[in-house]
């Protein structure tokens, strides 16, 4: 099945991302090429996932696995099959968070297998204008894999291409800004503060969104 995913990502996802967003990437050389590695991006649209799968070089793309909500992406068998085998999601049961279940276990397994795990620390799609509250799961993953770099990525404009609740995407340019990887420093709140600051610093460099 791996070859099917690879072909679909390279021959379908990439041209589609290019058509819909122009995939204007700054700092592509800072993307991790081998795992274990964590990529942390803001989230405003399904286009975020498409873009992040499209901008990795071919030799790394088979390793890229977006963390996604099990309650949403595994809700029916067809979407579930597509999510697992084409998008390659790492399912997280976000509804079971905080009830004693280890919801991050699949993400840790992926990192242990040497995958590049893409997380959206906001935990859900926002309105595309501001960075929402960040959830601490990414810090726990970084703590479990201190050797894995955490690369912050700001995606500007995906929320305009396909906002939450819309079905038809409208082609508009998106800027993807890749920041310097952060290392684990032993303190979760401090790590989350650094990640937030890094994402906001990337946002400041992005072209303006005249969208009101």
């Amino acid at each position: 099945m791996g070859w099917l995913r690879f072909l679909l990502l390279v021959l379908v996802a990439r041209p589609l991302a290019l058509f819909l967003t122009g995939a204007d990437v700054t700092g592509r050389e800072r993307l991790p090429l081998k795992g274990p590695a964590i990529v942390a991006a803001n989230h405003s649209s399904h286009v975020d996932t498409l873009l992040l799968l499209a901008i990795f070089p071919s030799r790394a793309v088979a390793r890229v696995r977006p963390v996604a909500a099990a309650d949403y992406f595994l809700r029916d068998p067809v979407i579930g099959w597509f999510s697992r085998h084409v998008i390659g999601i790492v399912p997280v049961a976000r509804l079971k968070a905080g009830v004693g279940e280890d919801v991050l276990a699949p993400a840790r397994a992926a990192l242990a297998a040497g995958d590049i795990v893409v997380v959206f620390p906001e935990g859900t799609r926002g309105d595309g204008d501001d960075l929402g509250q960040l959830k601490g799961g990414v810090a726990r993953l970084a703590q479990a894999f201190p050797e894995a770099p955490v690369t912050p990525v700001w995606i500007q404009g995906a929320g305009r291409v396909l906002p939450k609740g819309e079905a038809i995407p409208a082609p508009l340019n998106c800027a993807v800004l890749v920041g310097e990887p952060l290392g684990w420093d032993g303190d979760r709140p401090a790590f989350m503060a650094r990640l937030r600051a890094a994402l906001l610093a990337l946002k400041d460099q992005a072209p303006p969104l005249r969208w009101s």
Partner: protein
Amino acid sequence: MDIAATVRAFFAAQPPVLLIGLAGVVALLSVAGAIATLLTALKPDKDYRELRQRIASWWVMVALLAGALLLGWRATVLVFALISFMALREFLSLAPIRKEDRPAILAAYLALVAAYGFIAADKYMFYLVFIPVWTFLGLPFLMALLGQTRGFLTTAATFHWGLVTCVYNLGFAAFLMRTPDTDRLPAGPAGLVFFLLLVTEFNDVAQYVFGKLLGRRKIAPTVSPNKTWEGFLGGWLATGLLIWFAGPVFTPLAGHGLLVVAIALPLAGFAGDVTMSAVKRDIGVKDTSHAIPGHGGVLDRADSLTFTAPLYFHLLALFALDRF
């Protein structure tokens, strides 16, 4: 053997002057590349990466456009549709647009498809009125149906400005490919388009080079602080001479018609450049995207073409072509 014969037949079917013209561009780029390599070797302390990137991008653009021109009108119309699409996408991404306007954005792309459809179907009269009259009226009507009246007039104007510059005006370059053989063109319809692209880009480069070498007096300090009178006049003179001497080789222009094109086209190129600079300044960006390494976005490269293409088309129609 068969492949070699097919390739030979393909080139043999092309107007010889067009091939010579394209070979000239390739030679020019090779010289530019050699100079960039030499500069990098002679002055290792200076950073010539952007210059080399610029030249590499020129190779890609020349290969794409030359390939399309040699393949004929279908490929050329397709490539220009793609250029228009990328330019319009850049424009709509940067311009202030209201959240309610998503359907209008989709309608603008549909207008692009329809306009290029009229070029493909060779419907000149439909093309002429479709964007300036029918889209001009239809898109604001759609926006009215969407119900948001805040900033209505500004947004309607934004859409129209984008569609006319990025689609309607650039489309004229593609429409030249539909000039029939009865117009007796010295280098075929592709020669007309080649010459438009050659002189427009030559004018851009010449203005830049003269500005760098001699530039002192700023010509539009609040809009485009790097533009100078020396660059403008030097580019005007150099491009005017190029048009005057090379025009009869690639186009049916002669005499008064040629003189008018030689004087007006470099002015239009300058006007397009400065006007798009004003738009970019208003929006607050330097480049419209990074689609073309070393150059910026498609609109940064095609800004002068949005002015020169319709002017060139109409002057050709007025002085030389029976079809339009």
